[in-house]
């Protein structure tokens, strides 16, 4: 009965007054971009702020793709209400390609190894991977494989909405089983090419996992907020359960620990070995403001969420989880900045007006573009899988297997 009243309009969100927000965000982003291009001293700041924002949103797309795949790999039922909107986010590859164009055009000034002036002896062996040809070929391959994977998964899912055929589930399972390997390799290449190679002298083989852990963490925070909003708007309210929120929260908690484990391991191995080829990366990140950002990541990315989500009931408590999700976005942005921005600001000068305007501008602009894509996709398709075989289980309804009911009938 309480569910009925909840579905009625009283508690429903009215998002119509926010309808202009994506366009406003894009306009803000474009203004920041114009400023970044016109003012010569802002060029570098703009380039790396743009890359930081790009890597942030890439996290969400890849994280969603991962969640869709684990859903099929583990045959999980609790993700069913969330799967459709995660599929939409993971299908935002055209947006990624569009936003990648500036990076592709100016790669020569962003990545030192892309231009002959940036060459040094450490590039000798790595030049097989880090050269302009492989950069562009790889970018095409990465986007193509993500497009194939995310659309393959979503098309089968949309097909099932119409037919309800079990074969669609099997198709999705096959995509997930093969795709998880493609995903792991492509994510690692993407983050090596676009983020780690900013300092190509450095070595860290676990950098891909590091980015992956932070990405899925942020995606789960985003999933929590999207689930909350889409429940409020009525999109997924017929199917989402209280326990769904708890389950997202639990996985978010798990990835809090996983990220900390990975980042600690990376730091610890480099600290313990103390080889200059590796330590320089972290030494640079102890300068000026980067020391504080590092501490912020240590405490804010791990201790704060870990200790506040330790209790089982915290994970379904909205006054804790919604601020925590916003906090997670900030922390992931701090993490991306910690990785990217010391390249143009190695001494760790504090926040300048330019960096503030351009960072917020790039984030806002990209958020606007992704929001427009998401809303368009959300409205074009059913908001949750209509005929997924696990729906009854999601709703907590027991349906007797066909074999059991037919044997009972024959006994009677």
């Amino acid at each position, binding site marked *: 009965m309480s569910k009925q009243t909840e579905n009625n309009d009283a508690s429903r969100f009215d998002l119509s007054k926010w309808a202009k927000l994506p366009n406003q965000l894009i306009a803000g982003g474009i203004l920041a971009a114009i400023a970044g291009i016109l003012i010569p001293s802002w060029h570098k700041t703009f380039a790396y702020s743009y890359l930081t924002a790009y890597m942030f949103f890439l996290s969400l797309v890849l994280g969603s793709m991962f969640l869709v795949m684990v859903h099929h790999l583990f045959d999980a039922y609790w993700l069913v209400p969330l799967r459709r909107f995660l599929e939409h986010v993971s299908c935002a590859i055209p947006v990624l390609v569009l936003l990648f164009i500036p990076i592709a055009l100016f790669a020569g000034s962003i990545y030192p190894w892309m231009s002959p002036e940036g060459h040094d002896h450490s590039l000798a062996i790595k030049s097989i991977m880090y050269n302009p040809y492989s950069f562009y070929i790889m970018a095409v391959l990465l986007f193509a494989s993500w497009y194939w994977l995310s659309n393959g998964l979503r098309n089968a899912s949309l097909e099932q909405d119409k037919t309800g055929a079990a074969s669609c589930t099997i198709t999705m399972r096959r995509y997930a089983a093969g795709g998880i390997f493609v995903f792991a390799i492509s994510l690692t290449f993407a983050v090596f090419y676009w983020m780690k190679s900013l300092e190509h002298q450095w070595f860290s083989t676990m950098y891909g996992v590091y980015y992956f852990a932070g990405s899925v963490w942020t995606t789960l925070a985003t999933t929590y907020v999207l689930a909350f909003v889409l429940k409020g708007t009525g999109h997924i309210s017929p199917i989402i359960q209280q326990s769904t929120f708890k389950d997202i929260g639990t996985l978010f908690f798990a990835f809090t620990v996983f990220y900390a484990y990975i980042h600690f391991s990376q730091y610890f191995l480099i600290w313990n070995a103390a080889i200059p080829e590796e330590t320089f990366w972290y030494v640079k990140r102890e300068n000026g403001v980067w020391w504080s950002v590092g501490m912020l990541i240590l405490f804010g990315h791990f201790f704060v969420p870990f200790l506040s989500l330790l*209790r089982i009931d915290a994970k379904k408590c909205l006054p804790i989880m919604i601020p925590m999700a916003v906090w997670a976005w900030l922390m992931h942005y701090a993490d991306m900045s910690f990785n990217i921005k010391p390249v143009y600001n190695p001494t760790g000068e504090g926040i300048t007006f330019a960096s503030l305007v351009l960072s917020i501008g790039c984030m806002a602009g990209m958020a606007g573009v992704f929001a427009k894509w998401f809303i368009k996709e959300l409205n074009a398709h059913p908001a949750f899988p209509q005929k997924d075989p696990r729906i009854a289980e999601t709703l907590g309804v027991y349906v007797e297997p066909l074999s059991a009911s037919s044997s009972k009938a024959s006994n009677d």
Partner: protein
Amino acid sequence: MSGVGRQYGVLAEYDTPADAIAAAEKVRDAGYTQWDVHTPFPVHGMDEAMGLKNSRVGWFTFCGGMTGFFGGNLMIWFMNSFDYGIVVGGKPLYSPLFAFPVSYEMTILFSAFGSLLGMLFLNRLPRLHHPLLKNKRFGSVTHDKFYVVIECADPKYSEEETHSLLEESGSTHLEVVKE
């Protein structure tokens, strides 16, 4: 032999998890406190149906974990830095960095101790005998039957009312359990 023959409680048998949950909700709403549900496997939603709050075992786990973490750090600081300082690889005598992996393992070990001992303590285990164990019918709890047991020690217990409550809840078999 004065204990023999004294009533322990009422045992009500159910055939399905759904019946057991519905019965548990009734017993909870009637305000009983000294009662329990026994099932062959964990039943989702039973905590809520019984009105059980979050288990307090977590606090034992947390305290155990904290003890392990800080104890581990303290141990490493004492051994490698205070009692007998050893320089390894030019590193500081004590650093939370190299102490972390061991402290982390100690955290896990002591949280496990905390959980296990806390669980035993809160359940008042070990205990050698329980009145339900000699009940023949109750043996099916490990097979395919679900039981609600209300103890006579419950302040709300009255033979008539408790029996009729359980009967109305759809129990297939009702029985008084002796001490």
